[in-house]
């Protein structure tokens, strides 16, 4: 349904998105997880045809967003980071206008506006001016705007940002309810959100895709293994076999080498600490143990960032019944 191929976006010298590729199948909810400034918004803006990529291609519902923008845009609903509301219009007027420019036929417009308002629970604010709406309502009117023309693809940039916990739960439910009919890409910097709403996750950091997996797969990948970095001074000898032979070691890879000094990445089950065994094995063979430290995968680093960022919000939602 959505295909992103090697997209790169550069602004002058800075690279916002660097060689990003992923696919989203029909009816799937894909989460875009990454810390602030990771390139999520830029990628979404490229997908929606708001800006062209410097390099690469993106297709939405079979249409290249750059060569067939009108066809692609007709099939896309987009909720930007800040809901694009016109302050001097009422909610109904606004949705009617959006329906018009999205090409909804005039006889269907009334029904579409009404049903979009009902699905997003904003019907009670129909004749309120957009400037007078609370943050939660603005976000939901933004969502109503995105689904008004019943698009095949929904692109939602931080759909739960700024909502209170009750609204967050409602919005997530709403998004889950939209899946199936719609293919959804949503971005977030909150980890639990991905686990609760998405079937697949793209983790992005500093413009690069770090991992693509299911939420469960990611968790097990992170919790399953620990990696140690071992640097050994043993001229002319490869320590791989020795390390491999230690109990609890699942994988050993040579990572660097220079003038007899070799560095290895040693992977083991997370629960067992094998540092003592490694040290003993190296020293007993008369080699020099120059370095032994746990390695952090970049994925884990991102994960830590996103998990720490969601903490305050989690705390809030736990306090409230």
């Amino acid at each position, binding site marked *: 349904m959505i295909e992103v191929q090697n997209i790169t*976006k550069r*602004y002058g010298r800075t690279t*916002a998105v660097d060689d990003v590729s992923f696919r989203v199948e029909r009816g799937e909810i894909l989460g875009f997880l990454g810390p602030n400034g990771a390139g999520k918004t*830029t990628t979404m*803006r490229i997908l*929606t*045809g*708001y*800006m*062209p990529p410097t390099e690469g291609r993106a297709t939405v519902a079979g249409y290249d967003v750059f060569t067939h*923008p*009108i*066809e692609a*845009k*007709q099939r*896309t609903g*987009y909720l*930007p*980071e*800040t809901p*694009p*509301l*016109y*302050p*001097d*219009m009422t909610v109904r*007027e606004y949705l009617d*206008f*959006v329906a*018009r*420019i*999205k*090409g909804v036929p005039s006889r269907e417009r009334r029904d579409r506006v009404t049903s979009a308002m009902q699905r997003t629970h904003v019907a009670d604010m129909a004749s309120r001016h957009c400037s007078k709406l609370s943050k939660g309502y603005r976000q939901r009117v933004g969502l109503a*705007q995105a689904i008004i023309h019943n698009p095949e693809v929904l692109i939602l940039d931080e759909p739960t940002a700024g909502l209170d916990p009750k609204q967050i739960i409602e919005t997530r439910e709403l998004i889950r309810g939209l899946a199936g009919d719609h293919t959804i890409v949503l971005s977030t910097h909150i980890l639990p959100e991905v686990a609760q709403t998405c079937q697949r996750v793209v983790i992005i950091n500093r413009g690069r895709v770090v991992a693509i997996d299911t939420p469960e797969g990611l968790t097990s990948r992170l919790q399953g293994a620990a990696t140690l970095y071992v640097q050994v001074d043993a001229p002319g000898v490869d320590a791989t076999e020795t390390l491999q032979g230690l109990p609890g070691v699942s994988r050993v890879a040579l990572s660097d080498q220079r003038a007899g000094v070799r560095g290895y990445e040693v992977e083991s089950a997370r629960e067992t600490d094998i540092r003592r065994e490694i040290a003993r094995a190296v020293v007993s063979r008369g080699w020099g143990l120059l370095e032994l430290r746990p390695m952090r995968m970049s994925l884990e680093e991102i994960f830590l960032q996103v998990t720490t960022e969601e903490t305050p919000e989690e705390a809030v939602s736990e306090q409230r019944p």
Partner: protein
Amino acid sequence: MNSVRNVLAIADKELRSYFASPIAYIIIGLFALLFGWFFYVYLMSFVQRSTGMAGMGGGATNINQDMIRYVLMNSAVIILFVMPMITMRTYAEEKRSGTIELLLTSPLTDVQIILGKFFGAMGLYAAMLLVTLLYMGILFIYGNPEWRPIASGYLGLLLMGGCFISLGLLISSLTKNQIVAGVITFAVFLMLWVINWIGDQSGPTTRVIVNYLSIVDHFDDFARGIIDTKHLVYYLSFITFGLFLTAKSVDSERWRG
């Protein structure tokens, strides 16, 4: 068919947003007031002159050439002052508030959006002019002016305003700040108006070029009741060029991000 529908949707939205805020009423009111002032002043002087001449045995003065023409030419100057207020927010405000993201991700072409905004502003401008027709009505009640020069004068005003609007759109598309857009638009308009003052002081070739550039100068013949293709072509190509540059500006913004 679809593209017409899209242009109308944008134009309608623009027009409604003018009238949703006090800006439309202020502009229309202000314009009507100033127009009325010029109308009154020129009418009084016309009445004085014509009665004076009648006393001396002359009497045959033409209200079209000696009064309406001057009122319309002066109103061109008021329009120059008022127009930045209409165009300054068109793009700048959408960019500031982020609604431009909605427009640019909707199945619309840049040209449709630009034309929609252009016709929206033209709509408000037409409403401004429409109010001043009331004053002309007074002349028709108490006298019998010719309607043709008045019609050509208003056509000229519409076209001249179109030039201001297309230029204003362009300037508004270059910035996020509507005040900046307004001030720059005003400065550029003013320059295009006073440019023929330089023309008066300079050599014959420069004068021709400079006078050609002055938007207001081309209006002169329209006010007199002459519809010259030369001026029509000038105005229409000015408008087209302005809108074309706006399209380029919107597109380049997209590339720069």
